């Protein structure tokens, strides 16, 4: 599904080459296309080989700068700039369309990312038609995430400008993870997270509405939600932790939204489970990890946190961590806060 359109500047958005003509105009009709895409809530960005300050200044003068989020204007290979966008804004390559008038640039990107869609921008009518086809495939009820991407852009820009290590930046974010018990009215959000989340999804197990209702009501299970915010804004409910107390202390499911990749929130939720297990005087916490094509990061998370594989386990759970009273997995940059619902602990 199309989520991001990456535009070249020279001879694609602009009617000429900026470095040769500092007063270059927009191509006829291009602003209408930008507006159309914007209305469909698809993120637009730029990858261009140009002088960054000059290009941004010209986009501002042409009154189109606000259409773009996290533009990559530099002299690097375009595949490298697109990688930066994909990695930092957490898109799948197949959700990205790259438009450029240079076939060399399209090929260079395609050779690195065969799943990225590419289209030559030389003929405006053909390009518009292609974009319209992709836009028509979108779900009309797509949630508007543009503002969330703008917040993420601000985070990324601050990190690039002011910090030596990512950890220094994360510490500055004052990230808070608020944990609360799930209620029936959260079921839709939980199911949405289960469906949409692949990388930080412990086992991709699905639960029906009735399963979730039963677990929410049961004293044998804990269905917990993580509401995450930092000094830039809120990520809303972005994590789910389901604990099973029936036989020992088991992490049944752990999911963190892809918007929070790279921020250590999964570690924080796992730590929350560990602290509950320690309070309940358990010596060991188990995890039901199941390998899927996408959740390799979860295996790394378990190994990073010191979990061990049960070699003889043919069945779930298959990883465990022996607990000590001082076991802690919480990253330095995250604070756990409890909602008003004191029942959580």
């Amino acid at each position, binding site marked *: 599904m199309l989520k991001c359109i990456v535009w070249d500047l020279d001879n694609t958005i602009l009617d000429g080459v900026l470095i040769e003509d500092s007063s270059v105009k927009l191509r006829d009709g291009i602003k209408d296309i930008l507006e159309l895409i914007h209305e469909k809530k698809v993120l637009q960005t730029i990858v261009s080989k140009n002088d960054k300050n000059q290009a941004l200044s010209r986009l501002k003068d042409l009154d189109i700068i606000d259409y773009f989020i996290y533009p990559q204007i530099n002299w690097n290979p375009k595949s490298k700039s697109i990688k930066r966008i994909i*990695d930092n804004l957490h898109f799948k390559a197949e959700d990205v369309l790259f438009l450029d008038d240079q076939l060399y640039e399209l090929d260079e990107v395609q050779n690195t990312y065969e799943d990225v869609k590419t289209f030559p921008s030389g003929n405006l009518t053909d390009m518009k038609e292609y974009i319209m086809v992709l836009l028509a495939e979108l779900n009309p009820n797509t949630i508007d995430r543009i503002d969330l991407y703008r917040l993420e852009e601000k985070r990324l820009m601050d990190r690039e400008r002011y910090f030596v290590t990512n950890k220094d930046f994360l510490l500055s974010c004052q990230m808070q993870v608020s944990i609360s018990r799930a209620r029936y009215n959260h079921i839709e959000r939980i199911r949405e997270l289960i469906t949409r989340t692949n990388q930080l999804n412990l086992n991709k197990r699905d639960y029906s509405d009735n399963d979730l209702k039963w677990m929410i009501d049961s004293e044998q299970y804990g269905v917990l939600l993580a509401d995450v915010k930092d000094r830039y804004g809120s990520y809303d409910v972005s994590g789910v932790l389901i604990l099973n107390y029936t036989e020992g202390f088991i992490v049944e499911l752990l999911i963190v939204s892809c918007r929070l990749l790279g921020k250590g929130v999964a570690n924080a939720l796992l730590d929350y489970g560990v602290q509950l297990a320690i309070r309940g005087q358990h010596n060991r916490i188990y995890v039901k990890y199941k390998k899927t094509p996408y959740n390799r990061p979860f295996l790394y998370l378990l190994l990073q946190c010191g979990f061990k594989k049960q070699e003889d386990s043919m069945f779930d759970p298959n990883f465990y961590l022996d607990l000590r009273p001082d076991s802690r997995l919480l990253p330095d940059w995250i604070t756990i806060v409890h909602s008003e619902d004191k029942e959580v602990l």
Partner: protein
Amino acid sequence: MDKHDVKGFLYEKLIELDLVSDSDALKEIVYFSDLGADSIAMLNIVVLMEEEFKVVFPDEQLTFEAINHIGKFCDFFASGTGLIHG
């Protein structure tokens, strides 16, 4: 596999992935968590190294030390333990 090559490539990628902006901050004794590298960052690093050195990384054989510590990670990778060469 030469550890020097592994370390050089790793340092370059840690900068490229925005985990650190200054290579002076990188030393073998540094822990990945000191850079703010979580499991996603580790996966990105491993995938880039797999592509560069044309190997498949043996996730199952990764030790706690190797996945948390820059020097031990380089040792693990350079030793070729369990690496499948493509």
